[in-house]
């Protein structure tokens, strides 16, 4: 594309196409192509790619769809995201999908997989049980088998048997995708005024709807345009946003945080797009094993992973330091047990590391941001106005303690 603006305008449309028109068009161009929908957080899209498929992220309906039928399926105390998914399923938005993947992230998504089974959606519905045991020969073997089940289902649909070279190629493409995302994130950390998080969010989210080759091109273009010295720095603080790995925040919420005086230098929006912290091994004889090992050993931290051996509080603090952020905003969806049950522990880790934080809850279709804007604005102001004196007081207090 010819300009950053053009990319953003395209992505704005593509990222919220709840009819999945471009993905369906892609599928219709070749009868052997298959379309898979996957729920948050992570799914190794490489295996779909290698089977001439496209794995499309189903991230909920956000604030783009009025929920009528979906509310009849869920009690008021269950998060909002599955209502939009059911609404889309019942409205026929997902009719041309061949299969659905429900990663094991919480009980709500787990039971949603059962609802899809009962509704008879797709040619298969797979609850992908990610192992919580991270030994290669225990959890690894189990996960290998889980992935094989997905591969078998795809094979039943289009008869394509995945060859190692195809899977290796897919791994390379998705490694490239992740590396480009990380490069842009790094650049955005250094020059956050060059692109807003809102605009980058559109670009990132678009990647869940289109073929990876196409998204890589968009990311390369974006990276190139961001090399230019564009935009004006503002007197904003830098924050990391944590807790939004599944139900996505509405765009209005991201805008609100930015308008309240924050540069978001890292977050967990669409975390699955950069789930791997390092490249999956390329060009191996057993690329499926490479994907398995990558999940066991290279995954980022998340509330969906049992973390006793590598606590996520410690990893969040490292992330804040790496991003040179001034504080953390804990923004989790209402009724999200995984995110909300982690919050006290993460906050404690922040307190111990002297990192400032605030928290609030949202749901994907909230429309009122005034209170959040005031809260975030006060947080930003407090850091801008008082950071140095507070640090000095802390140093003084430490000195007094030593005396």
């Amino acid at each position, binding site marked *: 594309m010819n300009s950053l603006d053009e990319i953003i305008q395209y992505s704005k449309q593509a990222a919220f196409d709840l009819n999945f028109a471009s993905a369906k068009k892609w599928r219709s161009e070749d009868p052997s192509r298959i379309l898979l929908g996957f729920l948050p957080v992570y799914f190794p899209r490489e295996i779909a790619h290698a089977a001439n498929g496209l794995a499309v992220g189903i991230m909920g309906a956000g604030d783009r769809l009025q929920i009528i039928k979906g509310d009849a399926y869920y009690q008021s105390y269950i998060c909002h995201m599955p209502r939009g998914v059911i609404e889309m399923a019942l409205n026929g938005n997902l009719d041309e999908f061949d299969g659905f993947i429900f990663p094991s992230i919480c009980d709500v998504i*787990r039971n949603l997989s059962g609802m899809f089974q009962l509704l008879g959606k797709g040619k298969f519905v797979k609850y992908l*049980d990610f192992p*919580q045991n991270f030994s290669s020969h225990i959890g690894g073997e189990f996960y290998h088998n889980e992935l094989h089940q997905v591969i078998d289902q795809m094979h039943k649909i289009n008869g394509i048997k995945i060859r190692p070279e195809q899977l290796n190629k897919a791994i390379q493409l998705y490694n490239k995708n992740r590396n480009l995302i990380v490069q842009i994130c790094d650049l955005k950390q250094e020059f956050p005024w060059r692109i807003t998080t809102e605009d980058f969010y559109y670009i990132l989210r678009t990647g869940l709807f289109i073929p990876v080759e196409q998204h890589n091109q968009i990311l390369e273009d974006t990276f190139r345009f961001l090399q230019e010295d564009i935009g004006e720095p503002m007197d904003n603080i830098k924050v990391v946003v944590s807790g939004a790995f599944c139900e996505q925040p509405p765009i209005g919420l991201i805008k609100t945080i930015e308008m309240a005086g924050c540069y978001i230098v890292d977050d967990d929006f669409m975390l699955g797009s950069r789930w791997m912290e390092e490249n999956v091994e390329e060009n191996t004889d057993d690329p499926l094993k490479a994907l398995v090992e990558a999940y066991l050993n290279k995954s980022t931290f998340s509330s969906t992973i049992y973390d006793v051996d590598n606590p996520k509080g410690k990893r969040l603090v490292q992330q804040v330091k790496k991003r040179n952020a001034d504080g953390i905003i804990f923004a*989790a969806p209402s009724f999200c047990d*995984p995110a909300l049950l*982690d919050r006290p522990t993460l906050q404690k880790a922040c307190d111990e590391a002297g990192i400032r934080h605030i928290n609030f809850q949202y749901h994907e279709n909230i429309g009122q941001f005034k209170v959040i804007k005031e809260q975030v604005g006060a947080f930003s102001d407090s850091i801008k106005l008082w950071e140095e004196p507070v640090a000095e007081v802390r140093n003084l207090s430490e000195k007094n303690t030593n005396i």
Partner: protein
Amino acid sequence: MPDKQVAKEQSMILQKNMLARLFKELSTAKGTGKKVVYTFVPGNLSELILAFDMLPVYPEINALQSGMRKKSRDFIRDAEKAGHSEDVCTYVKCDIGMMLNGNIGPTGEKLPDPDLLLLSYTGCFTFMKWFENLERLYPGVQVAMLHTPYQEGGKITPEMVQYMVKQLKEEVIPKMEKVSGKKFDQTKLAEILENSRKSQDLITQIFDSTKNKPSPIDAYFAGVYYIGPINVGFRGTVEAVEYYQELYNEVQNRVEKGLGPVTPEGEIEEERFRLVVEGPPNWTHFREFWSLFYNMGAVIVASSYTKVGGVYDWGFRHNPQKPLESLAEYCMNCYTNLNLTQRIDLLEKCIKDYQADGFLINSIKSCNSFSAGQLFMMRILEDKLGIPVGFIESDLVDPRYFSYSNIKNRLDSFFQMLDQRKIIQKQQEIAT
């Protein structure tokens, strides 16, 4: 309903003594050197814990007891003050609040700190978060994680069993050996499993007694007491077998005499409605909640909640010949580890086998594992069986979510519907 003092049956006394002994042992564990394992009811590995002579503590049982003892409100408040959201599971918050307040158990004595956190991660994602929180409250404690695969395909595959057996062999048992200082004894485990099998046979027959009219038991409100020993560490003991034998005899005696269930206010003299209930009960107002049913002559002939610690209806029994495989299969067979289709099938079987007049869901705010999908399940059962259905909402141990009048209004409408249906059915019978 006669207003009379209800005499305690022998099985009640047996259970009370068993629990008193367990809590006594727990209170003296640090002195006696017995090691203490914190674990969960669904997918509990009672037999393994017994094989290592360790003592179990069940945080969700502590929470429900706190609820019944009216302590949970303050515990939840304290956990929320410590940063927990109002939205999350109240069992977790109640347990954390209890710990913040000295971890005093139901007997008024302090529960010992855990020597081992045994996370049997079965059918509930929140269990995992719960134990991550506990691990941080007891820094340095040994932790063993047993990941139970979900029955997403409606069956247990050899790969699922193999995954669990490997975890047991390479992670759980070595950790238990380390904590207890004892070697794993497979023969001893097999003997314990033989007792489990006997208890499972008996409890299945006890719950099956609701086929009788009138039903001799209430399989929900009284059922939660019946599942006590088999769920809280006694499964596999001779005591448990004796308890279930005694209970079975008592139930048979009631069947022979044509008696209905015993409630806190005496026997139900007229069984007006037979119900199947899905979902856990509310604990903070347990007796009031129950009275809403027995005052109307409503008897619960089957409930899904009494299957959270194991589903025995389809024939599963622990197998001493294949001890680890059978532990794995047990874990995977717990109710909340079944997929929605299996849950519907099981409820349908209960409705048919026990000739229920209606199906009721008590949807629990705290428990997504149960609650997510219940409205859809209800609609399917209604369509398939043409049975009247009802839906009420409450919580496990958060009294803020128990509204007596709301629940009563809904139940009154539900019972009226059942009454009406009976009248229509009678008229149809006469007409034909």
